[in-house]
């Protein structure tokens, strides 16, 4: 059998942003001329672990950590224990953790299915709100490129830190994120 394999051009959905890549992490501080930019509002309508859609303007006065993830991503699910820990330790102090569940594949892969997302939340012990971002609208608004990614928003609704990549409870990246959370909670 003769193989004619034509990879005409490869279209990669993501490329390295202007971020530092150290120790496997893609983390950078986001400021524009010293002024953090406002976090874009999201308008996802399908939420889990929330009685009603969560809106950004409802969260003024709280620090918000967005986690862009998908349950089929091992890097994402291995980071979940850290996020659950953050939620447990800092929710009462003013942190709101929000998962933005963004499928990687088309619907045939099952990532768009609300029941599958619900099972993943239960499996990983996630009790904080999660939005289904099946059309990637919020992903695009935040110019996300990787699973998992993180956006830390201050009490005034401004993006202060962005990053991507798996981390684990107690490791240097975990401690860095925790330090950022604590700093913003203290503002």
């Amino acid at each position: 059998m003769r193989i004619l394999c034509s990879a005409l051009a490869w279209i990669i959905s993501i490329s390295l942003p202007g971020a530092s890549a150290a120790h496997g992490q893609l983390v950078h501080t986001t400021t524009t001329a010293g002024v953090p930019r406002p976090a874009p509002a999201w308008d996802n309508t399908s939420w889990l672990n929330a009685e009603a859609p969560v809106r950004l303007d409802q969260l003024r006065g709280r620090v918000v950590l967005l986690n862009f993830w998908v349950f089929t991503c091992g890097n994402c699910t291995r980071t979940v224990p850290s996020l659950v820990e953050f939620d447990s330790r800092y929710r009462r102090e003013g942190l709101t953790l929000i998962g933005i569940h963004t499928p990687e594949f088309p619907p045939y892969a099952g990532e768009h299915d609300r029941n599958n997302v619900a099972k993943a939340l239960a499996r990983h012990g996630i009790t904080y709100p999660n939005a289904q971002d099946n059309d990637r609208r919020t992903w695009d608004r935040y110019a996300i490129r990787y699973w998992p990614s993180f956006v830390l928003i201050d009490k005034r609704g401004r993006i202060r830190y962005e990053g991507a990549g798996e981390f684990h409870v107690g490791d240097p990246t975990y401690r860095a994120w925790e330090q950022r959370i604590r700093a913003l909670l203290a503002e």
Partner: protein
Amino acid sequence: MRLLLASLVAAAACESGPAPAPVRLQAGSLAGEAILAVVPAHDLRINARVPPAIELAAGGLVRLARGRVSMDSSYFLEPPWDVRPPGIPIRGALRVSFCRADESVCRSVMLPVDLQE
């Protein structure tokens, strides 16, 4: 099986485009059956929780989900493969989720594919 898949990795039957692709689709045979496999670049791991799929231009889907996976089922330990559907042109887009070990992130790629016998 492993020898076959290893040979698929080693073979250079596919020509890629101007930029090195993170994965490539290869055709081979196994026990007299034609198969398709997705071969990653040496430093990449293919996500096993959402296995590669070829979205056929004519409609339909070919999933390439066979192959050994890691203990936590996150990654394929060998090029994922499946039997090539007989009599169907493999023309369309190959979608693959993959991870670079040194980045700790997942990303996906779509490659146009056009396999002819």
